[in-house]
């Protein structure tokens, strides 16, 4: 099957239905292994056991940004190529991205209190992630209040492209401004600053989170395709009366 064939929602659904059980099983297995690695990961020499919050916070932060990145690519698909699945992808990714951004904010806050002495500071990294969460909420409001998906698709694509400016701001905020948040320690020039005994469980957990994101995305895309079919059938029904 050529990639272009997936532009057809019926073929996409058929492929998705075949892939989903395997992806679900793989996600459960990788999560089980990740939790095992996290349980036996050593404490940090400075942070003690609170480093275990990092195994949730960092993958959630990566996926929060990846979700918006995906919506940005989908926005090009909607505006430039009018790909039938581009808006379906963006709409499906929005609540999932919002959920991971929420997890990132809450776990960060719960990590900050014992380490920094405060749940929240208005520094560049924390504020830019909060802006990302608000952008996700705006995107959801746009999708959930629109009657016609064709009209909301264009507005959502423009919002995704405008919001994409925030992604490099989040990534480089710790370098551009003085922040309480620590600088990049995994994805940085010169390699990771984290010891392998903690880095490996973190990367395994990040893989598990990514598989979960992909699984939820495919499930939500399937729902959205069905929802558009329902709408199409109701319009046919209304036209025949």
């Amino acid at each position, binding site marked *: 099957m050529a990639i272009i064939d997936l532009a057809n929602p019926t073929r996409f659904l058929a492929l998705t239905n075949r892939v989903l059980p395997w992806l679900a099983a793989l996600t459960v297995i990788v999560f089980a292994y990740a939790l095992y690695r996290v349980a036996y990961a050593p404490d940090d020499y400075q942070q003690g056991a609170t480093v275990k919050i990092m195994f949730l916070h960092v993958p*959630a932060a990566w996926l929060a940004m990846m979700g918006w990145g995906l919506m940005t690519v989908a926005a090009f698909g909607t505006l430039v190529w009018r790909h039938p699945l581009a808006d379906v992808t963006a709409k499906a990714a929005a609540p999932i991205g919002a959920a991971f951004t929420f997890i990132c904010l809450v776990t960060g806050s719960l990590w900050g209190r014992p380490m920094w002495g405060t749940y929240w500071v208005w520094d560049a990294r924390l504020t830019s992630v909060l802006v990302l969460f608000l952008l996700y909420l705006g995107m959801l409001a746009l999708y959930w209040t629109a009657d016609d998906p064709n009209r909301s698709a264009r507005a959502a694509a423009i919002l995704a492209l405008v919001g994409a400016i925030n992604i490099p701001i989040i990534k480089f905020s710790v370098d551009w401004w003085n922040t309480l948040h620590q600088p990049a320690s995994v994805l940085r020039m010169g390699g990771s600053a984290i010891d392998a005994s903690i880095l490996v469980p973190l990367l395994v957990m990040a893989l598990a989170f990514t598989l979960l994101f992909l699984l939820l995305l495919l499930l939500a895309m399937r729902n959205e395709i069905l929802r558009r079919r329902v709408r199409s059938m109701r319009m046919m029904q209304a036209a025949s009366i």
Partner: protein
Amino acid sequence: MSLGPHASFIVAAYIVTVVVVIGLIAWILRDYAAQRRILGDLEQRGIKRRSQTPRGDEA
């Protein structure tokens, strides 16, 4: 496995994550069931999509 003096923060972070993820999964699965039910009702009433009619081409 000892979680040290800040165990409550660690446990709270994992609980919040599990609740959000389970909530998201439940919401998506409920939405799927609802869409399947509505589609089934419409099909039972003989309503077809445009792509299922001879002249249309919408998916």
